[in-house]
């Protein structure tokens, strides 16, 4: 495998020899066997694998070249990248210095402009068929001018970059489902990666942003096993998106007991009662927030008193007001009902009058029945 060693002017420098595999590279970077195994153990536990798998992971990692990763950002807010940097295990630095070769990433890479584009092109060429493509942000289809990088439309850059990708990871709700740009009325015609790329394996890692360790965990899975984890029906790894937040929520017993916070500062809010009434989307949201929690297990939205917004679900932006309980109508039904009653009362009066007319007509045309009328 050819390596891109070009520094400032594309000429090779020293260091082209030796350390070919990841294991060698790790050791040459001063990573001890011990801390390497620790990383493998962490990876294993992240993916809920038995300890017996650790040597396998180690072996897989040790003998691998750091795979090339190209990270494209389209209509995004960089929250997903920020989230990536918050991952505590595996950390972003352990990933980019030890496990992957992050050859293109706007927010993190040193090179800009032409040099940046050259880095992307070089990585695509050298690792054709083998690189991992990560995408955050949606892609506008209404007009290519709605989002360009280096003068290239997002659509062109995605289709071009996807060609040689071994697999694609769509990170964040924008890349997986269109996200906020896709929200009603979708002013730019934004779509997700899977709306465009049909011939590649796509792992969806939704969330706004996804949980930091979920991003790195999915990458770690792919890197370790070279395969795509088991996905649910909308392409999400089951290991992280297999359970609803509600089912794993530590406040679930309060839901079952019927104890609810009615506002953000009442007794229930203080005692950690269920936030269903405040609009919590936990019951319809599949994500790992309630189990892995956020930012090194510090907390997660529900623990900090705010109902789940449902950000890992498609179209959660248009799923009705965030503070309307899931069972509530999203539109004003009482108004509709009142207008309908008024309208229907008028209609009912007309129909009722018709019936009445029919009935009084039957009285009118009735001819007194006499005894002679009883036989046919």
């Amino acid at each position, binding site marked *: 495998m050819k390596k891109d060693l070009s520094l400032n002017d594309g000429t090779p420098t020293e260091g082209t020899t030796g350390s070919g595999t990841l294991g060698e590279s790790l050791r040459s970077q001063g990573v001890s066997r011990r801390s390497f195994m620790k990383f493998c153990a962490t990876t294993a536990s992240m993916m809920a694998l038995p300890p017996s798998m650790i040597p396998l992971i180690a072996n897989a990692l040790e003998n691998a070249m750091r795979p090339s990763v190209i990270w494209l950002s389209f209509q995004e807010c960089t929250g997903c990248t920020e989230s990536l940097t918050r991952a505590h295990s595996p950390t972003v630095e352990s990933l980019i210095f030890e496990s992957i070769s992050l050859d293109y990433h706007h927010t993190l890479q040193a090179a800009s402009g032409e040099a940046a584009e050259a880095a992307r092109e070089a990585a695509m060429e050298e690792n054709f068929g083998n690189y991992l493509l990560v995408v955050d942000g949606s892609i506008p289809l209404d007009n290519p001018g709605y989002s360009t990088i280096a003068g290239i439309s997002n659509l062109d850059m995605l289709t071009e970059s996807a060609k040689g990708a071994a697999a694609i990871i769509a990170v964040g709700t924008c890349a997986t489902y269109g996200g906020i740009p896709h929200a009603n009325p979708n002013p730019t015609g934004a779509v997700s990666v899977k709306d465009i790329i049909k011939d590649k394996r796509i792992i969806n890692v939704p969330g706004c942003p996804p949980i930091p360790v979920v991003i790195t965990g999915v990458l770690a899975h792919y890197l370790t096993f070279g395969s795509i984890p088991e996905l649910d029906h909308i392409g999400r790894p089951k290991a992280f998106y297999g359970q609803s937040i509600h089912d794993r929520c530590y406040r679930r017993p309060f839901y079952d007991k019927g104890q609810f916070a009615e506002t953000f500062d009442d007794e229930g809010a203080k005692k950690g009662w269920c936030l269903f009434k405040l609009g919590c989307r936990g019951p319809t949201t599949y994500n790992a927030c309630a189990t892995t929690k956020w930012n090194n297990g510090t907390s997660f939205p529900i623990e900090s008193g705010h109902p789940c917004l449902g950000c890992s679900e498609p179209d959660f932006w248009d799923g009705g007001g965030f503070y309307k309980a899931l069972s509530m109508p999203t539109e004003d039904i009482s108004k509709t009902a009142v207008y309908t009653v008024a309208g229907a009362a008028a209609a009912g009066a007309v129909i009722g009058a018709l019936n009445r007319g029919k*009935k009084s007509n039957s009285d009118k*045309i009735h*001819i007194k*029945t006499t005894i002679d*009328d*009883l036989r*046919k």
Partner: protein
Amino acid sequence: MSATLEKGINAFKRQIDSSVASFFSSCVHCGLCAEACLFYTETGDPKRTPINKTEPLRRIWKSEYTLFGRVGKMLGLTKKVDDKLLEEWQELVYDSCTLCGRCSMVCPVGNDIALMIRKTREGMAAAGQAPEGLIGATNRSVTIGSPMGVKWPALRAQIRHVEEDSGLKIPVDVEDVEYMLLLSSMEIMNFPEFIEAVAKIFDKAGVTWTISSEAFEATNSGIQIGVSDIAAELVQRIVDVADKLRVKTVISPECGHAYMAIRWDGPNLVGKPFNFKVRHILEVMDELRQQDRLKVATKESQKLTYHDPCQISRRGGVIDEPRRLIDMISDDFVEMPDGGKMNWCCGAGGGVSANERADEIRLKVFERKKAQLDEVKPDAIISACSNCRIHLEDGLEEYNMEIPLLSLTETIAEHLAED
């Protein structure tokens, strides 16, 4: 103009009011009414389920008075009412229903099914689907003045007999009296003792009363066959006479549907409130009892039970009165199971007894009464409806039971205190 389907359908349309509409809207086909109807319980034939008997009326309601039904009718989707249907239903509406109203008491959604069947008869009759027996009876009522063909001379003869037997004067066509007594042809022909009993009681109580030679017949075939026009005509005869004699109260005799006809349907049939009150003879006696004007000296020694005539108790509201009266003359009174407002019908009311075609079924369903009687095993049965009384006698005979039947009025009269 003779009866036609068109006329019948028009009659159905006339009968549907808000109550009927609410009833049909509410039916959930739970079938509970079947278990309340002796025509079902004793035959086990589900088509005799009370609500099913209203099918022709329901179809008209649906297709004429509901939005969905109207649309369905336009599209030709609703079930039609035709001669075939009515013919098929005749047996259910007339032969298999005594309008006893027990179903109306159990319907969980509150449907007054008896009322609905009564209304169904209006359409049936107008469409020429009334049974021959009832037509005959009605014909006699209108033309002769009594369903059994009893005319004034016959009654006059009976009155004479009573006067002779009792030594009491039976007032006829007296004006400005308190009470005017009506009689059923059944009483005139089969139970003249009733006239004598009333005469005795009134004599002791010292009330003024009379019988009219022009309008003495209490029964009303128009009600039973379901022709309001005829029923109104029959009621009007009584109203005219009562007004002419300026009586204060008209007394309905021991006859269930007669009481219904004059007391509850009467004013509505003629379209205006009466100038006089209408009371059942039991009510009158109970009133006298309250006023201490009705006293008995002796009591019955046998075990008595009371058969509530449907139209008097459940449908008429005279439930406690007979029990208070029986209390005067008996220390050994026993209620039949379901006695009172939930009592089972004898099986012959509502024109069934006038409908020869129904003879077989009416005796069949008597098994229900038999079961009730088997449970209490009375020495004698008291009732207050001569129609019930005749049918009970028929039934007891059919099932080889020997229990005497007493009229409450007559029994009271027997035990009257001699001052």
